[in-house]
């Protein structure tokens, strides 16, 4: 039982290692700390988003709004900084609670009106994207000393690699979320809700509080990812981060989380993002392979993991 629970995690980790070794054997400079830290740097916003998505999916739901929330958060932040001349920290202090509130509202609608998360968050996706385009349709460049300072701030590692502030934010939240999921009552409630909402309720889990918290947390992390994305691009763009929700869902599935809810690990999702990132890096290093292969390979990986999960679950009739 214990071992079986970890099988998808082991497979993702092994695949990641194998891909990395193949890349290292083929290309000079692939096996460097720089490549690894670049994986962190390039995927920090996706990693942060995927943390929230993991929670939502473990609880048996789905959140399609995250990509739009990233865009909205980026646009709002950059407008506050460039047009209203707020200090970035002030802007973050406003944007983060607003994003959290957005998620809490979706959670409330899902819970109170018994609507499907898929369609409610789809509406949320349109709403957030609509608000973002209403605020500004153009990409807004951020030019602020604070951003320059952040760009310079990083922990240097040997091999010309460095962990920048975005990677550090991700690592911090990864530790927090993983701890919450495995060592707090809220984490247990999330697993219980995804396993069987009815039993969870009978056991005394407050479905309302848990559902609303989950979607609030997911939107909070997406908002944070939007801010991290502005560190990466130095701008906010209403039409940016399209399809991030799909990447996040793919990472969660590849990371071994059951889409029916109840089972999965935050660590698996992180490995899933890295696996997709390594494939992307491999294709970049190769140079002759075109970018569309990324999509096809990720599609095949998804298929592989879904079938694997089916096989693993097939052995246990209680979960069929």
């Amino acid at each position, binding site marked *: 039982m214990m071992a079986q629970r970890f099988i998808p995690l082991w497979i993702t980790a092994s695949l990641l290692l194998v891909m990395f070794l193949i890349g290292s054997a083929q290309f000079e400079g692939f096996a460097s700390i720089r490549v690894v830290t670049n994986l962190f740097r390039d995927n920090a916003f996706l990693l942060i988003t995927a943390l929230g998505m993991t929670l939502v999916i473990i609880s048996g739901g789905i959140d399609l709004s995250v990509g739009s929330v990233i865009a909205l958060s980026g646009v709002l932040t950059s407008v506050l900084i460039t047009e209203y001349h707020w200090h970035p920290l002030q802007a973050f202090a406003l944007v983060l609670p607003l994003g959290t509130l957005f998620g809490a509202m979706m959670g409330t609608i899902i819970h109170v009106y018994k609507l499907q998360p898929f*369609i409610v968050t789809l509406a949320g996706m349109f709403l957030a994207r609509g608000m973002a*385009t209403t605020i500004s*349709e153009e990409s807004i460049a951020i030019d602020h000393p604070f951003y320059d300072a952040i760009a310079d701030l990083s922990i240097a590692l040997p091999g010309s690699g460095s962990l920048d502030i975005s990677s550090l934010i991700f690592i911090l939240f990864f530790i927090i979320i993983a701890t919450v999921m495995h060592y707090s009552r809220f984490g247990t409630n999330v697993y219980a809700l995804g396993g069987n909402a009815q039993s969870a309720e009978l056991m005394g889990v407050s479905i309302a509080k848990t559902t609303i918290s989950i979607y609030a947390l997911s939107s909070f992390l997406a908002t944070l990812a939007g801010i991290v994305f502005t560190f990466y691009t130095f701008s906010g763009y209403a039409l940016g981060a399209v399809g991030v929700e799909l990447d996040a*869902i793919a990472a969660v599935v590849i990371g071994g989380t059951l889409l029916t809810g109840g089972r999965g690990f935050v660590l698996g999702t992180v490995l899933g993002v890295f696996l997709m990132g390594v494939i992307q890096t491999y294709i970049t290093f190769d140079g002759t392979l*075109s970018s569309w292969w990324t*999509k096809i390979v990720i*599609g095949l990986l998804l298929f592989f993991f879904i079938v694997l999960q089916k096989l693993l679950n097939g052995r246990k009739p209680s979960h069929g």
Partner: protein
Amino acid sequence: MKSSAEMISPEALPMAQSSQQAMNKEKTDRYQAGKSASFGRYLWPLLALTLLLLVNLFIDSSFFHLTYQDDRLYGSLIDILNRSAPVALLAIGMSLVIATGGIDLSVGAVMAIVGAVCANLLLIPDISLVTVILAGLIVGLAAGSINGALVSFLGIQPIVATLLLMVAGRGVAQLINQGQIITFQHEGFAAIGVGQFLGLPMPIWIVVGMLLLSQLLLRKTALGLFIEAVGCNAKASRYLGINDKSIKIFAYAIAGLCAALAGMISTADIQGSDANNIGLWLELDAILAVVIGGAALTGGRFSLVLSIIGALIIQTLATTIIVSGLPAKFNLLIKAIVILSVLLLQSEKFRRQLSGLFKLGIFNNAKAGDKK
């Protein structure tokens, strides 16, 4: 069946008869209930569409004006019908998939694949139009069948099963196009998108044709009923002898076929295949059209006509925003608000709260009247 008939002993017969009567009564009750509900079902979406059209008339008095020129009708209404064609086609297929309790996220990607296949075939000199169209339809059917097989035989959740093709499909389309935008010169194929027949644009006829065909197939045979049965309760319908797996594959295959038609219209429209952008996010519009049409995402009853009305509402809304002179950037925001309202109105609890509020208002007014 035979053994169960033998099992009823003579003494039990009166009881069986009375229960039979009760069942008949229940059946007629349900039939009546269904009848009255079906009227309401059509009322709200139609009312919404009419309201939107009236808003347009209010903004622009020549909105309903149609002109006949060069053997073709021109006017805003024709434009709405024409532009809603791809989403309307997708909505036909999506209705069936949603009715089985599933969802198909891949239709946009399937449109891209079909567009790429057709555009590349058209580059072959002297290829017959029929071959190209048939190839496109077969690709669509195949893609849909893959989705269906994943859902029914592997038992994968529909969202995930179709997410596979949604992610990989665009990659496949780009692979076929080798990352280029393939353009072609072919009058026959272009006619699918920009041609006309009896004064109306071709896409409208394609939607009408597909609607009539599906309606005949679904409602003149038991197929439609089977689909609804599978959507209500797959297990129960299996015990009834319905092959729920085949029914699901059929629904996804039709969705693939509809996506192929929509893909061909979009490709013919711009006379080129742009694998990145054709049908992008149209799956969401199609799902929305079905939901606005009043279908529940949990499966069960469906109505193709209502889904098409849903597609028309979406397109009319977009047109209204343009006609009203509001910047196009409000399009998404207004769309989101409309979706949220429709969703909330579908929730029984919200309706109760709303009517509670309404009654409270009347009650208070009455009280105030008494005091006077």
